């Protein structure tokens, strides 16, 4: 157990293992994404009330779900960095922020595009949508804060504090559709009890959610690898790797 944590703190080991994970995870992710997209776009029947515009949920819901999950990853990594000063946690946190921002952007944008034909408006200042916008600003804030500091350690601490304070927003996003009267519909998929969505629509949606989780994992690992090399630029293993043209 402890040797695992010890290895986790070793950059060359992490670089190697993430490379071998990506070799099979990346093709699987792309396959799942393409399968889910084609399934949702071509092989499902339209919603009886929303018509074809509902097909946007196959990207909107997965992006929103994983954008929230990504925030946990970022905040927990930030906490680990603050408490145990684990460098790899800082690397993970910095790697998670831009991916989370991209996914939140996708969720907001596809929500707006879906809102136009369905609600008749691109945007409303409603609890769910506003709290998602705050999530986007939190992610972008972490990205910007890292760039603002020259001292990497200070940057890591400041970003960890920002992301931990920002976790207040997460339960607000989850509960916003129940707490406030909102245009946004409540959750259709439930872990307990009957889901209010037909299985023919549920299965491609679940596939897409899984694919987006895998996408997040791939991007996180790839960002971490790039960041690791830059932080370890002075070490022998990175220099050898550079001379070998990245293979080794």
């Amino acid at each position: 157990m402890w040797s695992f944590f010890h290895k986790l703190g070793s950059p060359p080991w992490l670089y190697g293992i993430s490379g071998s994970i990506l070799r099979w995870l990346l093709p699987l992710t792309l396959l799942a994404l393409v399968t889910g997209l084609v399934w949702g776009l071509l092989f499902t029947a339209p919603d009886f009330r929303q018509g074809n515009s509902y097909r946007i949920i196959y990207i909107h819901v997965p992006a929103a779900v994983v954008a929230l999950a990504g925030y946990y990853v970022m905040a927990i990594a930030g906490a680990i960095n603050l408490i145990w000063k684990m460098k790899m946690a800082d690397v993970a946190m910095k790697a998670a922020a831009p991916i989370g921002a991209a996914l939140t952007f996708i969720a907001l944008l596809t929500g707006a595009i879906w809102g136009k034909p369905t609600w008749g408006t691109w945007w409303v200042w409603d609890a769910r949508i506003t709290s998602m916008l705050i999530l986007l600003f939190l992610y972008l804030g972490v990205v910007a804060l890292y760039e603002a500091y020259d001292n990497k350690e200070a940057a890591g601490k400041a970003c960890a504090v920002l992301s931990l304070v920002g976790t207040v927003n997460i339960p607000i996003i989850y509960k916003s559709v129940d707490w406030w009267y909102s245009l946004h519909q409540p959750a259709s998929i439930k872990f307990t009890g009957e889901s209010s969505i037909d299985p023919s629509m549920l299965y491609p949606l679940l596939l897409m959610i899984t694919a987006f989780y895998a996408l997040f994992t791939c991007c996180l690992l790839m960002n971490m690898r790039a960041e690791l090399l830059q932080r370890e630029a002075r070490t022998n293993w990175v220099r050898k790797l550079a001379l070998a043209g990245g293979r080794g």
Partner: protein
Amino acid sequence: MYFQSLDALLHMDGHGVFVWSAYLITSAVIALILVAPGRRRRRFLRQLAGEVKRQQAAAGDTRGGD
């Protein structure tokens, strides 16, 4: 397949513009976050390789000058 023709698929009863633009923009963003880290890593390794080679050459010169 649900749609009868390519035209029906593109048009989607008037929702085609919304659905397709949402899918296209999402695909572009996903492509970006998938490609960017690899490019950053490879560019960095190329730069570092150049730097290491220059340092080695410089070290070789000083040894030769002794």
